[in-house]
C-alpha cells in the first residue's frame, strides 16, 4: 500500500542563483504513514512552515517529488489541488486565520460550502464540529468577540468539519498561554487516536515531546527523524 505522504529530494529555493538565494527546503525526503502523529521541529527559519505548505498543497516545491496517497502532486491541476485541500487536509494556523467578517458558524461552514454541501446538512455538520471543540452555543458570535483560545478552537472546528484524513497545524499554540495550549494539544492527540494523521509544527521541544515521531529541521535539511519506543 502506498504511503500517505512521500516526498523525495524536495527543494524550495527562493531567488535561486542570486546572491540572496535562500534554500528553505534543501533536498528533503520524508515518508509519513496514515494515522501517525508527527512533530516537525526546528529553529525559526529552519523551513518548518515551508515544509507544511508543501505537504499541504499550498505551495509548489522548486524541485523534487511529492506523492500523496501514491498520486504525483505535480500532475494535479489547481482545481484538483483545491479539492485535496478541501477534503483531505484540515489546516490550523498560529494566527487562527478566521475570516473576521463572518460569524463563527459561517467560518466553520466555509469548507463545506466549497464542497457543495446543501445548507441544512452543512449547518448540522458545522454545529457538530463546534460541539466537538466545546463551542456549542457560540455560533452567532464574531471571531473578535472571542478569546484567542476560543478562536483557535473555531479554527480547529473548521479544520475538522469536513472530517479530513490529515490535520496540519503550524504552531497552533504559539499565540496561546500554556494552559490553553495544552487543551489544544490534547485535542489534537484525541483526534489522532480516532485515526486522523496529525502533522504538528512547533519550535517548542516540550510540545514536540508529546508526539510519537519527531522530525527536526535545520537550514532546510532534516537532521533528526526519531520515533519514540514507548507510548505516552
Amino acid at each position: 500500500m502506498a504511503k500517505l505522504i512521500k516526498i523525495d529530494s524536495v527543494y524550495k529555493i527562493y531567488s535561486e542563483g542570486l546572491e540572496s538565494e535562500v534554500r528553505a527546503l534543501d533536498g528533503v525526503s520524508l515518508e509519513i504513514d496514515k494515522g501517525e502523529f508527527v512533530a516537525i521541529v526546528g529553529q525559526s527559519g529552519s523551513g518548518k512552515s515551508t515544509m507544511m505548505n508543501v505537504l499541504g498543497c499550498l505551495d509548489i516545491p522548486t524541485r523534487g517529488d511529492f506523492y500523496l496517497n501514491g498520486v504525483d502532486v505535480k500532475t494535479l491541476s489547481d482545481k484538483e489541488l483545491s479539492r485535496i485541500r478541501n477534503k483531505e487536509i484540515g489546516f490550523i494556523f498560529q494566527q487562527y486565520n478566521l475570516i473576521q467578517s463572518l460569524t463563527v458558524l459561517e467560518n466553520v461552514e466555509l469548507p463545506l460550502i466549497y464542497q457543495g454541501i446543501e445548507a441544512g446538512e452543512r449547518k448540522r455538520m458545522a454545529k457538530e464540529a463546534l460541539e466537538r471543540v466545546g463551542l456549542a452555543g457560540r455560533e452567532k458570535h464574531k471571531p473578535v468577540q472571542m478569546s484567542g483560545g476560543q478562536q483557535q478552537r473555531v479554527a480547529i472546528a473548521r479544520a475538522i468539519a469536513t472530517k479530513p484524513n490529515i490535520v496540519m497545524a503550524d504552531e497552533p499554540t504559539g499565540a496561546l498561554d500554556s494552559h490553553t495550549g495544552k487543551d489544544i494539544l490534547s485535542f489534537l492527540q484525541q483526534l489522532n487516536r480516532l485515526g486522523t494523521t496529525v502533522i504538528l509544527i512547533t519550535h517548542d521541544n516540550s510540545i514536540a515531546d508529546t508526539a510519537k515521531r519527531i522530525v527536526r529541521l535545520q537550514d532546510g535539511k532534516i537532521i533528526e527523524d526519531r520515533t519514540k519506543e514507548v507510548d505516552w
Partner: protein
Amino acid sequence: MLTVLSIFIGIAAVMTIVSVMEGMKAKTAEMYSAMGSNRITVSIYSWMYDEQGNSMNTKDYYPELSSFCSSIPDKVIGVTPNGYCNATVVYGTKSSANMEYQYDDNWNYISGPPQLYYGSEQYAMCNNLKLVKGRDLAVLDLEKYNNVCVLGSEAYTAFFGKLDPIGKEMQFNGTNYEVIGVYAPRSEDGSNKSMDNFILIPYTAKRTLGGEINNFVVKAKDSKTLKEAISLIGGFLKGAVNTATGGYDVYSENTWQQQENETLNMIGLILGGIAAISLLVGGIGIMNIMLVTVTERTKEIGIRRAIGATKGSIIAQFLVEAGMLCGMGGIIGIAIGYVASIILGHLILQMSILPPVWVTLLTFTLSVVLGLLFGSYPAAQAAKLQPVEALRAE
C-alpha cells in the same frame, strides 16, 4: 462612494434620456396619427410679390390637382386645399377678437381664438375628421360659393356650449355663414385640444375673405402607394406650375415624422454618449475599489484558498460583489431616473412620462453587466494569487 455616485448618475442619465426620447416620439406619433397617416403635402408657391408684399400666386390650382387625383383613384383617396384666413369670427355676443390664448400651469393649451380653415369636401377625409352633427361640405358648396361652415369640436363648444348650432348664422368679417355640421374631437386624452379649435369653410370663400392657399393635402391609399403617388403628383406639377415665376414641393408626412424621429435618435445618441462616459468613469472607479478590496482581503483570499476554494469560486465571489455594488448603484440610479423623467417630461413635453418597463430592466441589466465587466479584472487578480503568498499577507 464617489464611484457608486457616478454609476448611479450615469444610470439615472441613461434612464431619463431614453424615457424622454420615447415620450417625444410617442408625442409626435400621436400628433401625426391624429391627423391620419399617409398624408402628402403639396405646396405651390410664387417668387413674385406685388408692391404690398403679397404673393402674386393667385392662380387656383385646386381644380386641376383635384381632377388629376381623381384620375389615379387606386393611389389617392382624397385631396383638399389646406389654407387659412384671419377673419374675425362672431356669434351673438362672442367674438374671436376677444378670445385670448389660455394655458394651464404646465403650458397645456386650454382655449384660444378658433382658426378659420379653407378646405374642400374632402378636407375631413384628409384630416381624419368625423362628423357628429349635421352635414359635411359638399361639392356644390364650393361651386356655388355657399356661405356655410363646419365646426371643429373645440370651436363648437367655445361658441355654442351645448346648444344645437345647425342652421345658426355666424359672422366672418361681417359676412353671414350658416353652420351646417360639427366634427368629433380627434385628441383622445384632450392633450391636443388646440387642433380641434377650427372652423372649416369652402376654400372658394377666399374670394371674399382673403388669405392664402399655398398648400394642399393629398391622402394616399396606404403607405405602399404613397411613394408612387408622390412621384405621379410631382410629374403632374412639373407640367402645371410655371417654374419661371414659382415652384412646388411634394413630400410625405411619414418621412417628416421619420426625420423627426431620426433627429431625436441623434440627440439621444449624443446624450447617451455623455452618459456612457459617466458610466465608464464609474466602471473604472468600481474596478479601482475592487482592486483595493482584493489587496485588503488578500489574507481572506488565502484562507479561502487554503480551505478549498478554487480559482473559479474566488472569481465568482468577487464578480458577485462587483455586480451587487453596481446593481445597487443601478437601483438608486433608476429611482432618480424615474423622478427626473417625470420632472423633465412636465418641463419639456408638458406630459407625464413614466419610463417604460423595458427601459428600467435594460438599465438595471446594464448596471449589473457593468459591474461584472469592470469587476472581472480585479476578480482575475484575486484568483491569480498563490495560496501561500495570499496567506502570508497581513
